[in-house]
């Protein structure tokens, strides 16, 4: 039992170090606070895939009135998130199905117009900027379509290079 305890303590210590590191990258003034708007980014770079609603929920628990988040609060909340393995990565095939759902004719690609319509008008809407950024990489410039299998593979490859840690 003691071994297990030690093991778990060690694990928690390591998790806390990782969270602190990620937090500090965004801590502009080196004063252990971060702008609340960057919290989503930090959570995601720790290996989690929350959606916007989930990010907001988390933020609501720790955001100060001035919009900033303190390290100690973030640490507390985030450690639990990681221990509980919340906001798990979206499996590759699920994403594939999601793209396929938008591909009405099942032809392997989605037109620019359809893509824009779905992602900026539905779900947790993309901002103009987000949409443009995605299109720059995702679209095949000649046909103005998104070949989603290739795109998904491409992004997954990038990811696996970088995936930060295994709990």
């Amino acid at each position: 039992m003691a071994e297990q305890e030690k093991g778990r303590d060690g694990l928690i210590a390591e998790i806390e170090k990782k969270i602190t590191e990620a937090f500090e990258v965004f801590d502009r003034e080196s004063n252990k606070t971060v702008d609340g708007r960057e919290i989503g980014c930090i959570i995601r770079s720790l290996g989690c895939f929350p959606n916007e609603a989930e990010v907001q929920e988390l933020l609501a628990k720790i955001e100060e009135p001035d919009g900033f988040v303190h390290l100690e609060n973030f640490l507390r909340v985030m450690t639990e998130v990681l221990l509980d393995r919340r906001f798990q990565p979206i499996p590759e095939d699920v994403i594939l199905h999601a793209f396929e759902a938008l591909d009405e004719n099942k032809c392997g690609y989605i037109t620019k117009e359809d893509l824009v319509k779905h992602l900026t008008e539905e779900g947790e809407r993309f901002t103009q900027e987000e949409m443009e950024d995605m299109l720059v990489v995702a679209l095949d410039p000649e046909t103005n379509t998104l070949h989603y299998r290739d795109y998904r593979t491409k992004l997954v490859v990038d990811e696996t290079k970088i995936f930060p840690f295994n709990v």
Partner: protein
Amino acid sequence: MGSGSSVNVNYKYSLQKSENAFKAAVLIQQWYRRHVARLEMRRRCTWRIFQSIEYSCEQDQIKLHNFFSYLMDQFTPSSSKERDFISRMFISGESYKEAELEKYCDYESIEVPDSYTGPHLSFPLLPDHATALLEAFQQKQQLHARYVLNLLHETRKHLKQLPNISHVSTCYSEEVTVCGDLHGQLDDLFLIFYKNGLPSPSKSYVFNGDFVDRGKQSLEILVILFTFLLIYPKEVHLNRGNHEDHMVNLRYGFTKEVMQKYKVHGKKILRMFQNVFCWLPLATLIDQKVLIIHGGISDTTDLEMLEKIQRDKFISVLRLKKRKESSRKPQIEAVNGESEAGTDAAGNEAAPRLSLQPQSAQAPNTANRLEFSRWLRQTVQEQIDTCRRLMDISESEPEELTYSSVVSLKDVDEPCWTRQEEWKQVLDILWSDPMPQEGCRENKVRGGGCYFGPDVTEKFLDKYSLQFLIRSHECKQEGYEFCHNRKVLTIFSASNYYEIGSNRGAYVKLGPDLIPHFVQYQANKTAHMLTMTQRISRVEESAFRALREKLFAHTSALITAFRSYDGDNTGKITLSNWATAVESVLRLGLPWRMLRPQLVRSTEDGMLEYKSWLDDLAMEQRSQEHIQSSLLEVIYRNRSNLETIFRIIDRDHSGLISFEEFQQTWKLFSSHMNIELTDDGINDLVRSIDFNKDGNIDFNEFLEAFRLVKQRPS
């Protein structure tokens, strides 16, 4: 009702379809946002890597000082040869009186051959000359040495008339454009002129220092800026930066650039530059409300003092650590008859400087270290005396500094005769950085100037009724950044400073309302065409290469650190301990756990075999197996300092030093660094790279052989 139910089915089907589409959209957005967040994290980490490596390089300057201090204080020369060698390091090349300067750096005798197809300059300069130069440089032509020297002479004449603090008024020129560091990146200057227009009677510019070093076209930038300065003296203003300093140029590339481009007249040109840099104004004031300085301020910055000092005394602002020289003070007092325990500079600053002019060129002829030191101090003392005598003259006629007295003061490169405070004023202006915390403390990272807090800024602005400060000196990802509650603006004009895609450059425009308007840019077509992912990947690769080299350079220390976590000698450590160990050795303050996946390729069950990891790192570097591995490490760690030392020894700037000098340098250096280096070791070094040219060592080639991080192509 058949149709009704089919309508219902259709409706249900399309409802489900749109529900599915909605859910799909959420998933895709979720997944995509995760991807973007990861990119952002990578971008920031990369930035941190570059910054921490850059600042740790600045620490090299301190290490260099330590080396020279060591030579002075602790090292016992074992032979007269060795002593001669050391003393040569502390003896400057030549220094000149004004008339001699004219004679030595004379340009009139230099013939411009008919075969020369570059631009011709005649004085006084006209706007056409400027356009001709811009075109010529765009076509990669080179300005003839004669014109360069002529231009420098005229520039110096002009600068000498200017006060230490330039005054600009927006009521005359309407708008003022302020540019930050350019660091030899000519493309950025072209981009600024393209976007903003050339300097003209209706277009004022302030260039806030650091025109040179690092980039490969420092010379062209200076020629262009000086040309515009002379054509439009009312509209163009230049501030001195910390890189307008020959000691810094030795390390960071300007000296090398000039010597490579002007093989015959390079030395003269460099000498002239020294005498132009020291005349650059120290600050610019807009409408008495906005102060522009290169670095920053400190809690002792005094504009009145700054206005009055003789700025040309500070040819180089760098100096060694102060030493306690209580034994010397009595001598000084005796000479001056002052009872005051030499505040000055004279007392403390006589710590051996890198360039002193001995009255007699003879080295002491005993093997006694004490004798040697005494000789050196005596030499220094003589300098102090000369200066003091001249000082006395000039101080009695503050407004009428005679030409000759000003000139004579410049005979000595180092300001050992100025007051400590004056020197500090200039140092602080050129080298300081803002910090978020309150207070003011020594800037240990750069080895000069201060870190100043928002309270220092507030007090300073209040004292002089200013609205805000504009400074440069630090690279910013967006080209500019506010801090201290928008009271301090950093403007940085060298885009892609660390690597293509690393950052944008910017300039700021101020109208009579003094509200800043920014224009950002990035000088490189390829950067635009790359997607964000590609840009980040490229910069990232470059950063990690540099980081891996740093890791390699600390191999021995890392092994020791790893072993301390591997009590059972299994050869493995946990990834967590890896991160802690690496930070304890490198001290770069980097998020190692975030960076680990890019640095550590293979792990088994969460453990790292550290020896083979280090071996892999070593393999990436150039393989010089026959050289002592510890020596290799030393070279990597100290390459920048070694280069500077070689350049100091290479007084005629030929790029070659004798084999003996090379050997001597290594002996001294290894003694200081406490590494064992046998004669065989040195010979191996020499033989390993075939750079021996009739008994001389081309140290540029030598150093290139140990450079892994490739220079960016120009």
